[in-house]
């Protein structure tokens, strides 16, 4: 196994999805010719509303769903022709809680490892369970565990064969804050070991905090794939807030410009601007303020969150 440096444009894709579409038996089209490349060692967040096709896409790569058209390659190998090779390098944590309630934790993990044809390795299983704070529960039946622990068992099962690519489908849905933090620490550790992680989430903040790149999917189409930081810079609108020394009743006519509003309390001016524009209008605004004799006590800028960008995109406004 190679441990190359995480992400980088020159790295070959570990997962290549080309022209993949899926129409279910009932006639519902879940995916429309999706193209996507995932780089080695990155954390990729697939973002989209319910029914956008996220789970279908993951299902196709992992062998649960048959694609109607298109090709998927994992480390250059076709997922149908070389399914043994491709599946052995993938770990999947599905969205639904899918466990055999009467199995013990350690047995469940050992079973998952066995299915992948790997020899029994108690030391590895112990490491996985310890990393997920499940070691103390190893002899408990799954039905006795809390919801969060069950979810971690599913992660442990997915890691039991030490995959290179891990799919996490809505991993933190219904998980409390503390556990979520713990889960992200596990993800971070995996990234440090050179693993590639593809996750879907509704918690857009998580994608923003965790992901190197974000793909937005809407109605079965990938609308956008971008480095998280670039996306923020590229699409993010910023807001400049000017705290005024003295209250105003209205925006003075001399200052009136698109995007400038007075706060309700009258003690601050908000100016929305586009960072992508050639001229943001900030210089002019500040000059006009000076000319109009409006004193500014303080100022700050705020970038719109990924959530706002996301709403823009899936709403079709952008």
């Amino acid at each position: 196994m190679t441990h190359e440096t995480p992400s980088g444009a020159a790295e070959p894709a570990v997962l290549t999805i080309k022209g993949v579409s899926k129409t279910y038996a009932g006639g519902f089209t879940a995916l429309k010719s999706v193209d996507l490349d995932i780089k080695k060692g990155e954390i990729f967040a697939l973002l989209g509303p319910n029914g956008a096709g996220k789970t279908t896409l993951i299902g196709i790569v992992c062998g649960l769903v048959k694609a109607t058209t298109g090709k998927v390659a994992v480390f250059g190998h076709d997922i149908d022709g070389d399914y043994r090779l491709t599946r052995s390098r993938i770990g999947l944590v599905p969205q639904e809680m899918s466990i055999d309630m009467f199995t013990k934790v350690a047995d469940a993990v050992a079973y998952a490892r066995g299915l992948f044809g790997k020899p029994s390795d108690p030391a590895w299983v112990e490491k996985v369970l310890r990393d997920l704070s499940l070691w103390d529960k190893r002899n408990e039946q799954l039905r006795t565990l809390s919801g969060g622990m069950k979810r971690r068992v599913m992660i442990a099962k997915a890691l039991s064969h030490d995959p290179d690519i891990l799919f996490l489908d809505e991993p933190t849905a219904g998980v409390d804050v503390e556990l979520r933090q713990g889960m992200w620490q596990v993800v971070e550790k995996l990234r440090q070991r050179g693993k590639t992680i593809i996750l879907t989430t509704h918690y857009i903040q998580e994608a923003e905090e965790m992901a190197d790149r974000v793909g937005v999917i809407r109605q079965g189409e990938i609308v956008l794939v971008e480095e998280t930081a670039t996306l923020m810079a590229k699409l993010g609108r910023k807001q400049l807030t000017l705290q005024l020394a003295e209250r105003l009743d209205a925006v003075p006519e001399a200052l009136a410009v698109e995007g400038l509003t007075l706060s309700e309390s009258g003690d601050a001016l908000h100016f929305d601007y586009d960072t992508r524009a050639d001229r943001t209008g900030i210089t002019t605004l500040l000059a006009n303020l000076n000319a109009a004799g409006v004193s500014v006590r303080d100022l700050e800028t705020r970038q719109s969150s990924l959530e706002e960008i996301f709403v823009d995109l899936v709403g079709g406004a952008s």
Partner: protein
Amino acid sequence: MNWRGAVTIYKAEMARTGRTLMQSVLAPVISTSLYFVVFGAAIGSRMESIDGVGYGAFIVPGLVMMMILMQSVSNAAIGIYFPKFNGTVYELLSAPISALEIVIGFVGAAATKSLILGALVMVTAAFFVPMEIQHPLAMIAFLVMTSVTFSLFGFIIGIWADNFEQLNIVPMLIVTPLTFLGGSFYSISVLPPFWQTVTLFNPVVYLISGFRWSFYGVSDVDIGISLAAIAGFFALCVVIVWRMFKTGYRLKT
């Protein structure tokens, strides 16, 4: 070949039996004992011998076969249906394991359980009635072939079933009647000619007849036809399972 994967499924299925020992082992043995008490000892003592075999002894092969058929079908069906029901089938589908290996794991375990139960029933029977086995090798061959074939059949039902009702409907409404009407408790030669002909369309007749031959050397139909029937049903099940995995029928969306 991912043998480890197949063995993992096999062991997990056998462990499941271990967890439900009362239901999977004790219950069938007790119910079979009741058959011996009622049909073998109570009623059997007033029955004439059939083809020179005492009635109690005559029904042993039929009862063993009935046990094997019903247990094979229900064990294999629940074995694959349960992962579908609780969602863990994703593990099987996303693992580097072939259809053949999955089938070896599930069907192998179900057939093993049937063989163990079949042996237990025979041991139980020995307490109630005098038994002889004229062709032990043929008997073992019949047991193994029937266990495997009907486990395969149960596996098909488990994949096909979408709910617990469907899971039970085939064993209850098809396998049980076919077994009862297949000559478990009587020789088909006692039936009127018309019903004898109808009975020949029941595949279980060939199994029980052949199996009984291995015990007492007497059979309703030719042993060669019995073997051909079981081999034919096995081949049919293999083709159906193969198609199911090939098309992803009720496994993949």
